[in-house]
C-alpha cells in the first residue's frame, strides 16, 4: 500500500482524488501551499517529519521549491513533479485583483472580469456594458486568438518536466476557471505522475467526483471559440472539513456585472490594477460612442 503525499496549490485536491481511484490501495494525503503559509513553523515541521513515511511525494511545478528546498532534499529520490494546469484562453478576461497584498473578492470569489472592471472605471452603465460581451469586443481585445499561445505555454510547461500535454488538451473545455482544471484534466496528469513514480495505475478506473466542481466556475463566453453561454457558477458557504462550498448557484451575466459594480464602488483602486484592465479601458475609450 503506497503512501503518497502531494503538495501544491488547489490542484492537489483533484490530484489526490484521482490517485485514490487509480491506485485504490494507496494512502494519499495532500497539503496546499496556502496551508503552509497559514501554519506555524512547528506545524510545518511536524508535517515534514511525517513526510519521511511517504513512499512517493508529488510536488507541483512550478512551486516555490527554493523556499522548501532543504526539507525536500532529504527525500530527493522520492520526489516527483507534476505540472500546474493554468490556461487563460477559455476565460481571457479573467484576472485577480490584489490590493495591498490581499485578494479583492468579487462576484465569483477572487476571479474578476477585466472587461467589467474596465467598464466600471470608465463609467459605462451596466446595462450598456453587457452589450459589449460580443465577438467584436473579444476579437478586438485578442481574446479569440489566445488558444494557440495558451496551448504553447502549457505544452512547454508540461514538456519541461516530462509530461505530455496532448491528452489534457483533447479533453474539451478542461478548465473551470483560468487556474482551476476540471477533474478530467487532472486525471490525465495523475496517470502520468503515477507512471513517473513507478506506481501502476488501475486500468479503466472511473474518474472521481470533481472537488472543484462546487467551487466558482466561469463559462466560456458564447461569442468565443468553444463558446457556451454567459452563466457563472458560484459556491456559497464553505464546508470546513472538506473545504468545498455547501451550495452552488448560477449567476447571469447581468447579475455578475451588477454585483461586481456594487463591490467596486467601495474599493479605492488608486490606479492599481492589472495591465489587462488598462487595455480594456483603452478599447472602450477608442470605440464607444
Amino acid at each position, binding site marked *: 500500500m503506497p503512501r503518497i503525499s502531494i503538495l501544491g496549490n488547489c490542484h492537489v485536491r483533484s490530484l489526490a482524488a484521482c490517485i485514490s481511484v487509480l491506485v485504490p490501495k494507496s494512502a494519499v494525503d495532500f497539503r496546499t501551499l496556502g496551508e503552509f503559509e497559514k501554519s506555524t513553523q512547528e506545524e510545518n515541521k511536524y508535517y515534514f517529519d511525517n513526510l519521511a513515511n511517504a513512499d512517493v511525494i508529488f510536488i507541483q511545478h512550478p512551486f516555490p521549491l527554493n523556499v522548501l528546498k532543504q526539507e525536500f532534499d532529504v527525500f530527493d529520490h522520492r520526489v516527483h513533479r507534476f505540472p500546474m494546469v493554468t490556461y487563460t484562453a477559455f476565460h481571457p478576461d479573467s484576472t485577480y485583483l490584489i490590493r495591498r497584498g490581499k485578494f479583492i473578492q468579487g462576484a465569483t470569489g477572487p476571479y474578476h472580469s477585466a472587461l467589467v472592471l474596465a467598464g466600471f472605471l470608465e463609467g459605462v452603465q451596466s446595462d450598456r456594458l453587457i*452589450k459589449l460581451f*460580443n*465577438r*467584436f469586443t473579444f476579437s*478586438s481585445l485578442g481574446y479569440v486568438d489566445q488558444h494557440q499561445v495558451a496551448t504553447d505555454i502549457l505544452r512547454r510547461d508540461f514538456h519541461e518536466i516530462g509530461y505530455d500535454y496532448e491528452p489534457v488538451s483533447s479533453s474539451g473545455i478542461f478548465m473551470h476557471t483560468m487556474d482551476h482544471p476540471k477533474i478530467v484534466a487532472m486525471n490525465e496528469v495523475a496517470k502520468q505522475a503515477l507512471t513517473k513514480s513507478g506506481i501502476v495505475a488501475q486500468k479503466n478506473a472511473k474518474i472521481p467526483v470533481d472537488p472543484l466542481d462546487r467551487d466558482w466556475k466561469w463559462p466560456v463566453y458564447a461569442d468565443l471559440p468553444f463558446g457556451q453561454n454567459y452563466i457563472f457558477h458560484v459556491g456559497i458557504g464553505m464546508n470546513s472539513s472538506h473545504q468545498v462550498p455547501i451550495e452552488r448557484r448560477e449567476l447571469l451575466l447581468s447579475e455578475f456585472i451588477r454585483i461586481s459594480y456594487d463591490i467596486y464602488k467601495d474599493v479605492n483602486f488608486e490606479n492599481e490594477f492589472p495591465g489587462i484592465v488598462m487595455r480594456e479601458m483603452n478599447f472602450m475609450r477608442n*470605440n*464607444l*460612442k
Partner: protein
Amino acid sequence: MANPYSNRPDSSFWKRAVAGVALEHFDPVLDVPFTLLPSDKIATAGSCFAQHIARTLVSEGFSYLVTEPGASEHNYGVFPARFGNIYSTLQLLQLFQRAYGLYQPQDHIWRLGDGYIDPFRPLVETYCSEEALLEDRAVHLSAVRKMFEECDVFIFTLGLTETWMAVADEAVVPLAPGVSNTSSGCEYKFSNRTVPDMIGDMEQFVAALSVVNPNARIILTVSPVPLIATFEPRHVLVSTVYSKSALRVVAEHIKNSADNVTYFPSYEIINGNHIGNKYFENDLREVRPEGVKHVMSLFKKYYLSSNEKETRSRPDTEEKVHLGTVENSVIFREMIEAQKIICDEENIDAQN
C-alpha cells in the same frame, strides 16, 4: 510611340462594347476576383435596389442568409435581418456599431399615434409599447450580429448621399421624423455626405466587419434608382447625378483599398447609355424586372464557378432577357414580387 490602345480588348472601346452590342449581350463585368459556391452564405443590405438583389438571389437558388426569420407580412426575410433599407454608408456603419454595443443613439424610440416605432427601421413594425420595441430590437440586433459573423459574402448597395441625422449625436435615420408621420422630441438635421465622409464610413465598416468575420468578402454595388426627392436647393436630377457619382467614387476607392472588396456594375447595366430608359418603369425611377434579371444573370454568370453552374441550372434561369415580354410567366411572377419592395423613400413623395 505606338498607339497604346491598339492592343486593348473590345471591352475598352465604346463602339464595340456599348454602341455595337445587342442589349441582351451587354456585359460590362469582364472578370471577378472570386467565385461563389452554392453553400456560400450571402447577405445583402442597402437601398430599395438591394431588395431586388435579395429576392433574385433567393429565387436563383443562392444560399441567401436569413438570420432573423419570420412572417413576410411583418417584413421578415426582405433582408437577412429585419433592418429595412440602409441608404447611406453612415447608416450601415451605425447599424454595425449599434449591433455590437459600440453606439447607443439618444433618440431611439419614436411615437406613431398610439404606437411606438424604431427610428432606425421605421416601416418594419409598429409596437404597442416601448418594452415590446426594446425586446424586439435586442432580438433583431442579435440577428444582425449573426449575419455579420456568418456571411461569406456581404453585398452592399450604396443608395443615397442625402441623410437625416439627430443633432445631438448624429444618429442617422432612414427617414426624417416628419416624413413618416412620427413624432420625436429631438432635433434632426439634413446632411449630404461628402466623398471623404463616406470613404471614412466604409473604411471603418470594412475594418470592423473583418474583426468579427475575417473571411467575409464584400461586393459593392451602386443603386441605379434616382432620388425620389432632394433636400438640396437644386434640381432633383442634379442631386441624383451628384449622389450616384459620389457613391460610385466611394465604391471604387474602397474596392481599390481593400483586398476583400470588389465592385459589381449593376448601376452601369441599368443606367448605361446603351439601354436608354428601357430598364425603368414609366416613373423613370423604379427598375423593371428585366433590368434586375439582366443584372442578376451576369452576377450568376461570373460569381458561380462553372461546375456549380451545372448543378444549379434551372429551366427559367436559362432564358434570355427580352424586353416587353411581361406575359412571360416567370417575369410576371417577378413583377408581382417587385411590387412588394419596401421603399421608405416613397413616403417622402406620398405626402406631397
